[in-house]
């Protein structure tokens, strides 16, 4: 009798459980903690795109998608725990959403044969696929961002930065220090004077840095900030009456969250981006119909079209396209992480493909290869319109200065290969 009862309970549980999904994607998200305001829109965008594919297309290549979210609270230790606890689920790719977590996962995921997509963050030299076989950072990385920022400044200064003063206000962490080497190299090339102004975590108090900016009067200020550091920096810039059009943030310093608290004062602030913002794309009509309208949105639906929501959606779109590429290469819908890696390495994003997906002009065209896991680094500049409460894209997607960047990537990748005992080669 007891055995029958147990069998019945097990049968009921099995019958009640959802069918095991065929394609599993893992997102290490953060919906809690001090950075939740930024983590939520990205996670919502990432989840909503996969929901759309499930609801509208029945998944990818006929296989339903199962998204596993694990809460990291933007904490590296928790992120690694998330990875360890979910890697057995058959996740095709990890989106760590943190430079610190990415650094920890580089050796682990490589050893486990699971690809990692650190889109616009993480270790820049992971662009070198011969060394970082399972790490992808397309379509742009921090060094691309630094280079494009300088290219934009060249553009607004008539092509000459000689004698100009540029200050970098950065989060005093591995992430914030990423662009320094590039900016120093570019300073040698273009003759500008670079001042470094680190801000300690979390960045709520930046008076010293902005008093120095007020005294030194740099012609331009660049910012590599995150979380509260961005809002405080923009407010302090407003307070000292720094011309906002001369203030440019990396894409992680360019969300609506960063500028809205400063109100009208933030008008004219610029930010880099590798994708478009707003919801004026055909795909968003489908998001409205199949996801939000159907009550299946990951969040409240109030973040759709914001910079970070669109970044999450874009990341999911790139993951889905890589999965499709893997299915085509291996001629099977039920792909494995190893096949997914091949799909990512052969990803080819064209404008025709973006248009077909309902995202014309949303992001740059780029092609991934074994030698190049980082795409072409095309980056555009956005400018904040405080009255309209929206970002306006004021440039096309601009290519970085690869003459300067490629040797830096090669040097850093070679150092990592030596340290990790890796013989560079295409897998």
């Amino acid at each position, binding site marked *: 009798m007891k055995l029958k009862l147990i069998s019945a309970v097990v049968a009921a549980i099995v019958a009640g459980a959802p069918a095991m999904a065929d394609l599993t994607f893992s997102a290490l998200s953060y919906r*809690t903690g001090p950075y*939740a305001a930024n983590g939520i829109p990205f996670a919502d965008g990432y989840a909503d795109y996969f929901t759309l594919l499930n609801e509208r297309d029945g998944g990818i290549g006929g296989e339903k998608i199962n998204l596993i979210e694990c809460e990291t609270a933007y904490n590296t230790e928790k992120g690694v725990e998330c990875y360890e606890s979910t890697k057995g689920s058959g996740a095709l790719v990890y989106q760590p959403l943190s430079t610190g977590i990415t650094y920890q996962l580089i050796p682990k995921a490589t050893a486990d044969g699971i690809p990692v997509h650190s889109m616009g963050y993480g270790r820049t030299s992971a662009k070198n696929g011969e060394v970082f076989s399972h790490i992808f950072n397309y379509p742009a990385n921090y060094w691309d961002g630094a280079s494009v920022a300088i290219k934009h400044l060249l553009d607004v200064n008539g092509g000459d930065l000689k004698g100009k003063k540029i200050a970098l206000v950065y989060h005093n962490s591995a992430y914030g220090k990423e662009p320094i080497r590039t900016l120093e190299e570019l300073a040698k090339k273009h003759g500008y004077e670079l001042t470094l102004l680190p801000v300690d975590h979390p960045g*709520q108090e930046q008076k010293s840095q902005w*008093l120095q900016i007020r005294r030194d009067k740099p012609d331009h200020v660049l910012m590599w900030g995150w979380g*509260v550091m961005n809002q405080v920096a923009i407010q302090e810039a407003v307070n000292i009456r720094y011309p906002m059009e001369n203030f440019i943030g990396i894409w992680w310093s360019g969300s609506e969250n960063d500028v809205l*608290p400063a109100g009208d004062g933030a008008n004219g602030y610029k930010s880099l981006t590798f994708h478009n913002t707003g919801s004026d794309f055909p795909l968003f009509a489908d998001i409205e119909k199949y996801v939000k309208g159907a009550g299946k949105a990951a969040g409240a639906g109030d973040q759709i079209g914001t910079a970070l929501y669109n970044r999450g959606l874009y990341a999911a779109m790139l993951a889905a396209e890589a999965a499709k590429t893997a299915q085509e290469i291996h001629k099977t819908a039920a792909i494995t992480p190893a096949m997914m890696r091949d799909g990512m390495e052969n990803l080819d994003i064209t404008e025709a493909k973006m248009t077909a997906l309902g995202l014309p002009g949303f992001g740059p065209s780029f092609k991934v290869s074994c030698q190049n896991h980082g795409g072409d680094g095309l980056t555009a500049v956005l400018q904040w319109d405080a009255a309209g409460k929206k970002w306006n894209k004021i440039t096309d997607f601009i290519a970085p200065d690869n003459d300067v960047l490629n040797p830096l990537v090669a040097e850093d990748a070679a150092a990592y290969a030596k340290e990790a005992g890796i013989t560079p080669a295409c897998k």
Partner: protein
Amino acid sequence: MPETLLYAIEVMTNGLMAGVLYALVALGFVLIYKASGIFNYAQGVMALFSALTLVGIMDGQVPFAHLINAVFGTDLHHFGWTLPALLSIILTMGVMVLLAWAVQRFIFRHLVNQEPIILFMATIGLAYFMEGFGDMMWGSDIKKLDVGLPQGMNSWIDETTFNALGYGFFIDNLDIVAAVVATVLVGVLVAFSQYTKQGRAMRAVADDHQAALSVGISLNFIWIMVWSVAGFVALVAGVMWGAKSGVQFSLSLIALKALPVLMLGGFTSIPGAIVGGLIIGVGEKLFEFFVGPMIGGATENWFAYVLALIFLVFRPQGLFGEKIIERV
């Protein structure tokens, strides 16, 4: 006057102003520690919670909207009204009093006579609970706080110092307001504890719980009152810091700025919190100005603790703390 001296004076003045903001956070810790011997780890989260509640009430946000919508399938977000700042502050204070009652009724009433470490652990739990509760109640988006406080460079000071010294000093209007508010707040708190019946009862409880109970002072009432006053101080700190950066969850981390202030000023002294805040504010800013560039900058966070530790070497109880003499 040499330029470096002018810059140093400007940095020092701004350090004083920053110190006032640190002191505002430290005050809340002192009040609770003084009255109950509890080191309230949740003070930073109280500042966050009160600021979230203030913005929510001002903007007419429906509390627990996400939860209500998820359970009942509704689409509620706002009541459709906005309230004046003063009324919202009064209502927020009501919420903080309610919170003080709940904290006392459901947590500390059951922990009377427990070791200080147990009480401290309880406040850690309270901090995490309140953070999650605040998130569920008001959402985790960054909110703009506009209670009409002036912000930005004070033009009068800029022009006056420029005319007199040839260099215009930067002082943020918000910092000036914070300094005035902190001065008034300390005056009111000192007057309250010295000249009112409840204030004297609070001091009696701080000195000796048992003795206070024996003369008929309600420990329960005093602790609710103290947590309410600490809630009010948290609200003031939350408004000042929230106006700088928007109201967001990292606001709870301002507690980190208060710890060196407490170490330096002493855990039991209201004037100590102010003086400690000023010393830390000026010390860290001047160190960053003179030494920071030589050692790569970003010295403020750790230097505040180094400064506090240096003071502790000479006065372990802090500048204004009570010296503990234990006879064997």
